[in-house]
């Protein structure tokens, strides 16, 4: 997929909302300031990614993981982010697990409706194996 220049930018509306949440009510943000912060955010992502990647390489891994990103934050001197990040990660993991369970149940239901009931035991084993494999792989994001 070829990248267009605008793809490396973050959506203006979302950036504006995040800025407003951080400032006292009634404070104006100039268009120039908003645009500058948006660019700064993109640069932050690149810097964080590069830093996290160094940690991954140190660990001889090709996939960036959560620990790498957290280490990068510390290295970049954003220790103040550590606690909120760890807390959010926990919530996120629980949410993802919940979604996965829901998908599993949906699949099971679809399967049992189409096939014989005797097949259900086999499906359970398949699902368990699948879950172990999925945990470590990179997944495509649902948006």
């Amino acid at each position: 997929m070829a990248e267009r220049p605008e793809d490396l930018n973050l959506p203006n509306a979302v950036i504006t909302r995040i800025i407003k949440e951080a400032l006292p009510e009634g404070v104006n943000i100039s268009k120039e300031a908003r645009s500058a912060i948006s660019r700064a955010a993109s640069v932050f992502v690149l810097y964080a990614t590069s830093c996290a990647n160094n940690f991954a390489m140190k660990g001889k891994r090709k996939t960036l993981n959560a620990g790498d990103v957290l280490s990068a934050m510390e290295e970049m001197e954003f220790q103040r982010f550590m606690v909120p990040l760890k807390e959010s990660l926990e919530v996120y993991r629980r949410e993802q697990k919940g979604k996965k369970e829901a998908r599993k149940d949906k699949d099971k239901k679809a399967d049992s409706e189409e096939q014989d009931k005797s097949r259900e035991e086999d499906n359970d084993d398949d699902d368990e194996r699948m879950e172990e494999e999925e945990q470590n792989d990179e997944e495509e994001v649902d948006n």
Partner: protein
Amino acid sequence: EPRLVSLPLSRIRVIMKSSPEVSSINQDALFLTAKATELFVQYLASYSYKHGRGKEKNALTYTDLSHTAEECETFQFLADILPKKILASKYLKMLEKEKQDGEVGDDNDEEEEDEDKAVGDSVGS
């Protein structure tokens, strides 16, 4: 109910993957990067507003951000993309002066160098 993260993960992923040395990104790492970016935006905005020496008290301006990049070590990695602004007249005067001071050497790449130098040394607006 507030969402866990507002920035779209797909877009964050595109930016991360634009780094040539990155092969793959685990889902948790993607989420954390997005969340960290949100925290960063909030921090940059609130810090700049608090420490801004701009004349407007009820606004966040580009100058506030530029000051932050220059003066706060944590945000120094942004210095190049948030240069201080300079009046065109001042810049032209600086160019003239540099030309007079150093006539020795090449003519070729000097333009680009001077531009960067001027911006780096410029007085805040």
